[in-house]
């Protein structure tokens, strides 16, 4: 079966907002008025910027405490990892695993995959194109599950408010962690997966 033609070879482009096929001479989609581009503007630079920013924020997100627990007068601060460890040592390995996947494994996979995609696109690599395209779709799907820990801290802090007896307060770490999630989502959104395939046309 012969490969389908590329839209760019036929002077066509896709409106990402409504799915309309537009001619390359327009800047706004004739159907939905949204801005259209042949490729996402400055895709590689923007993705690198968001990726590096999120990597930097990931350090305080893990080092700073995400919440402060005061139980019957004795207070303690928890980071994300110490929270996971606490669940683990109390025998709830399932919850520990869930939080570990959402707040450590998912962001790390995103960093790794985005960096791989960026570097391979910059080196105009022909390596495993279909698999790289699949990797991109994979991080688009899993990306937002990292918000889990932010929501858990919000709920727990809203509930446990018994003045002197016991209380839970959010701490700085959760802000950085939330920003890491938002920044990696922006990074994934500004990466243009069509760049993976562009080398097929340009290098012939």
């Amino acid at each position, binding site marked *: 079966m012969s*490969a*389908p033609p*590329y*839209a760019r070879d*036929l*002077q*066509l482009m*896709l409106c*990402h*907002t*409504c*799915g*309309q*096929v*537009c*001619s390359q001479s327009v800047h706004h989609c004739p159907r*939905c*008025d*949204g801005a259209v581009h042949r490729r996402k503007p400055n895709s590689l630079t923007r993705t690198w910027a968001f990726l590096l920013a999120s990597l930097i924020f990931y350090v305080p997100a893990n080092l700073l405490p995400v919440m402060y627990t005061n139980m019957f007068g004795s207070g303690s601060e928890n980071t994300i990892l110490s929270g996971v460890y606490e669940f683990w040592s*109390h025998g*709830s390995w399932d*919850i520990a695993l*869930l*939080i570990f996947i959402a707040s450590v494994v998912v962001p790390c996979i995103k960093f790794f995959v985005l960096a791989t995609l960026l570097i391979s696109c910059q080196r105009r690599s022909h390596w495993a*194109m*279909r698999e790289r*395209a*699949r990797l*991109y779709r994979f991080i688009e799907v899993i990306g*937002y599950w990292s*918000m*889990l820990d*932010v*929501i*858990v*801290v*919000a*709920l*727990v*802090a*809203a*509930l*446990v408010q*018994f003045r002197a*007896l*016991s209380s839970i307060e*959010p*701490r*700085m770490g*959760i*802000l950085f962690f*939330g*920003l890491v999630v*938002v920044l990696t*989502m922006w990074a994934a959104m500004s990466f243009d*997966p*069509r760049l*993976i*395939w*562009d080398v097929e046309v340009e290098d012939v």
Partner: protein
Amino acid sequence: MTLSPSWIICEHCDSLYQSVPLAKGQAAQCVRCGAVLARASRWSVQQLFALSITAALLFVFANAFPVIKISLEGLSNEATLWQSVEALAYGRISLIAAVTGLTIILAPCLQIILLCWLLGFANVGRAAPGFKTCMRTLEHLRPWSMLEVCLLGILVAIVKLAGMLDVHPGLGLWALSMLTVLIILISGKDIRRLWDDLEGRY
């Protein structure tokens, strides 16, 4: 070159295809990159409208009633979604409250309102006022609506607190779990069919 309305372009690799009509349950896949090009719409406009109204009602319940109640030595407390967002608005970290509020309350709320508005008019064969703006806003909201993450977060919080005190799921939690399923059903790309259904009327 004249543009044909029956063309579709794969958003992941820029391949151009002639679109073919899909039967219910079928999906078209890109032969080059394997991404899904198009899915047959599962619902009619009328069904989507009905589901959106249901979602609107459930949204009111999910937000008006507490999602979790706890009790400790005679004292008790409860939290709604809004109170959880408020708990994060704490000094210098208030920005995260805005992000959380957007993802679990504002984005789903706007999605439901816009869907009801667009589908209500589409149901009688008309394009809603501000049709293009509403359709574009829905596309931009989709990645920021995270009710399913919120639901899992509530379950984790319940288990987390159950070790220290008595925890009871509130009425809001039942509404929220049904709402999450509905949002997944109605907030997909199905709504894009309105561009074709109302062709020339917006």
